[in-house]
């Protein structure tokens, strides 16, 4: 699902609070405004509805009153004996004279006699034209008809009274125009300036205004509205859609003398005009609301500023503390949560300062002790190195002289003694050499000399040197160099050889039967190649528990081993030291099938394009 709204992020507390409060206030304001506006609209609509209803009633009364007045006049005329006689004898001149008389006296707009035979006599002598036929039919279908008929596009409110002589001879029809003047007087009677319009519908077409005004633009809407209202028989005012909320409108069907041409009275009042009295109230509401929002924004900025100040101070103090400045305390002001936080912060800062001071003192003590220990160690190693060197000189003398003695002594017993002297001296020399190496390593005086050499050549040389000893002990000595390891590399072949000599020597020493195997594999990444050298044997092996002791100086598998196999116990320690010196790792493990395996992993750079012959020569 996608996030519809990016969650707004405000980096400042004051902005957050201002937005929060302004939002809340705005929401309340909108809610209240909506409520007020709805109430006002409802009220205005109700007022207009009531007024329209009242105006409709007023119109009904006016209509009925005038109908009644005209009907009474018509009835009076129809009962006049002379008029009766004139109608009965078709005395048109007398009839017209009587009609003209009443027209003038009563202020009606049209006075007509319609005979049962359809003959029509009007006061003015004018013809009713197309209106005559529907008028006659309406009269003929009943008696005492009252209603609207159209004459020359003008709606007339008409009443009739039968003329009996004594049987029905015809009808007196009095009519008054429903003209603009009439609409204006109806509007004057209403409390609101209603828009009263009489509309009629000819030949089933649209409702068109006969009197009163309907704008061209709204004729379609008005026509549809009337059609709906007439169809549903709505009595109450309804909303007539239109611009600016439309109007409240009420349709009063007018009885029509011509069913084919119905007529209605439409009373309208625009809602916008009904809302006009409330405009100042709405304007005041909007202005007050805008002022309120402004006040809330400013207020919350100030409030948040006050709130943020101690927090900012805490922040700054924390930064000072982080930088290790002495003065990391905060000025505590007040007793609220933030003040308590500041107190806790101050306590924490003091605690941190104290702890740091103590740690610094301890560290200084340690450094001094370390320096002292290292100095002592260096002195010891120097002493050992010197001593070895000093001891070697007379030992070399002893050895050299013993060899000379061996050539001169003929007696087998003496020869044996000399041989023992030589062996002891050699052992002593080896011991001295080891001690010297160990001391050099301890004193960090051992140096690594890098030179290119061919690995396979070096390995075979090492194995060749040991093959005689192994053969003498009845052991197989196998060298296994993987294809990828036959490379010319940059390293210290002397130190590598020292390590492997030590490992192979140990293997040969502790193996009574079987084989000793040297395996070389290439590995590591292309950019940083590493090589793995493994020396495995089928000898006595060792327990895992002994392992760490193996690599300690002057230690062997167990104390009995020294007695059985001899040796100084320095070899593995020195080898590991050398391996680490060259950035490698030396470790070992017992093999599950018996014997042990020691492996050396060394990073050795490849010499690109090196000539194998050259490197072989240098190896």
């Amino acid at each position: 699902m996608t996030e519809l709204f990016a969650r707004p992020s405000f980096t400042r507390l004051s902005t957050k609070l201002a937005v929060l409060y302004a939002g809340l206030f705005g929401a309340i304001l909108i809610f209240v405004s909506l409520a007020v506006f709805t109430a006002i609209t409802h009220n205005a609509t109700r007022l207009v509805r009531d007024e329209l209803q009242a105006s409709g009633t007023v119109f009904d009364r006016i209509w009925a009153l005038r109908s009644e007045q005209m009907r009474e006049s018509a009835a009076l005329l129809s009962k006049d004996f002379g008029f009766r006689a004139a109608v009965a004898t078709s005395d048109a001149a007398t009839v017209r004279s009587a009609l003209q008389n009443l027209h003038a006296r009563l202020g009606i707009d049209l006075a007509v006699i319609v005979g049962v035979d359809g003959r029509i006599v009007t006061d003015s002598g004018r013809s009713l034209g197309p209106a005559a036929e529907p008028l006659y039919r309406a009269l003929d279908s009943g008696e005492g008809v009252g209603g609207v008929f159209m004459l020359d596009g003008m709606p007339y409110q008409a009443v009739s009274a039968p003329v009996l002589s004594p049987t029905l001879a015809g009808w007196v029809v009095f009519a008054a125009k429903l003209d603009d003047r009439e609409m204006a007087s109806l509007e004057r009677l209403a409390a609101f300036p209603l828009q009263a319009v009489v509309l009629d519908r000819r030949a089933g077409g649209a409702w068109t205004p006969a009197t009163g005004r309907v704008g061209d633009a709204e004729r379609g809407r008005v026509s549809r509205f009337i059609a709906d209202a007439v169809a549903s028989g709505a009595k109450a005012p309804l909303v007539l859609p239109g611009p600016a909320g439309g109007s409240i409108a009420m349709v009063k069907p007018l009885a029509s003398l011509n069913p084919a041409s119905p007529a209605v009275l439409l009373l309208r009042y625009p809602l916008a005009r009904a809302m006009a009295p409330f405009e100042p109230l709405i304007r005041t509401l909007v202005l007050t609301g805008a002022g309120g929002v402004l006040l809330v924004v400013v207020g919350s900025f100030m409030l948040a500023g006050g709130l943020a100040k101690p927090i900012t101070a805490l922040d700054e103090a924390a930064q000072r503390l982080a930088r290790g400045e002495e003065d990391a305390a905060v000025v505590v002001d007040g007793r609220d949560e933030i003040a308590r936080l500041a107190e806790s912060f101050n306590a924490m800062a003091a605690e941190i300062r104290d702890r740091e001071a103590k740690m610094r003192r301890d560290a200084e003590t340690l450094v001094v002790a370390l320096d002292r220990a290292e100095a002592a160690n260096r002195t010891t190693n120097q002493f050992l190195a010197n001593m070895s060197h000093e001891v070697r000189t007379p030992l070399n003398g002893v050895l050299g002289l013993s060899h000379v003695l061996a050539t001169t002594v003929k007696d087998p017993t003496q020869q044996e003694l000399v041989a023992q002297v030589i062996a002891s001296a050699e052992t002593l020399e080896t011991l001295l050499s080891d001690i010297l190496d160990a001391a050099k390593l301890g004193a960090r005086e051992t140096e690594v000399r890098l030179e290119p050499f061919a690995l396979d050549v070096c390995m075979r040389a090492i194995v060749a040197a040991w093959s005689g000893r192994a053969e003498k002990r009845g052991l197989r000595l196998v060298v296994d160099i993987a294809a990828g390891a036959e490379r010319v590399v940059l390293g210290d072949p002397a130190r590598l050889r020292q390590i492997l000599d030590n490992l192979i020597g140990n293997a040969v020493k502790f193996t009574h039967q079987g084989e000793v195997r040297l395996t070389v594999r290439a590995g590591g990444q292309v950019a940083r190649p590493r090589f793995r050298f493994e020396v495995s044997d089928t000898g006595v092996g060792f327990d895992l528990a002994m392992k760490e002791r193996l690599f300690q100086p002057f230690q062997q598998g167990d104390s009995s081993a020294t007695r059985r196999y001899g040796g100084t116990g320095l070899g593995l320690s020195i080898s590991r030291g050398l391996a680490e010196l060259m950035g490698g790792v030396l470790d070992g493990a017992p093999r599950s099938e018996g014997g042990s395996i020691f492996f050396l992993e060394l990073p050795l750079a490849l010499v690109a394009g090196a000539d194998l012959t050259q490197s072989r020569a240098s190896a």
Partner: protein
Amino acid sequence: MRAAIFFLLTLFYCSSAVAADLAITVRTAAGKAVADAVVTVHPVEAPAGQAIRFPWPLQMDQRNLQFDPFVLVVPIGGQVTFPNRDGVRHHVYSFSPAKRFELKLYGRDESRSVRFEKAGVVALGCNIHDSMVAFIKVVDTPYAAKSDASGAAVFRGLPNGAAVVRIWHPYMRAPNNEVVRQLNLREGAVTEAVAVDLRTPPTRSGVY
């Protein structure tokens, strides 16, 4: 309303050699009896002129704001009295071509009389009370009768031979409000039925 008259002419066997009987029943199409229909018989061979006399009084009462009877058959030249039996005054008039007259307002137990010299229909009205309507049928034949409540009009002792029979009712929907039958009267009884329409009586009960 559409109305019809069944005009029944029943011929009876008559022992007299010179006289025939005629029985007429006037009904609407729905079978409703029509009263106050005036039936006149005009023999082709009219007897010598002699004064016509009818057994009913030639009198048009005004009683309970109504004329009584509703239809009065009067011989030509007959004089009709108009006694007022009501407590109010009446203004009796007629604009009919057969007799135009006007009896100006007169009161209780006063009477006026009018002579009708011309055959025809005289519609009577009261200028005060429009609901009062009556008709006087002035006839020029001695053989005239008004249908009773059962719609029957009976003649006895009519001369044999061809005759014109007219049946008139004020609200009959027909030319001159009458229908005409040509009948051959002979000894015995004659019956005939004719169906005609009746209009709704206008303003019998008044407008207002």
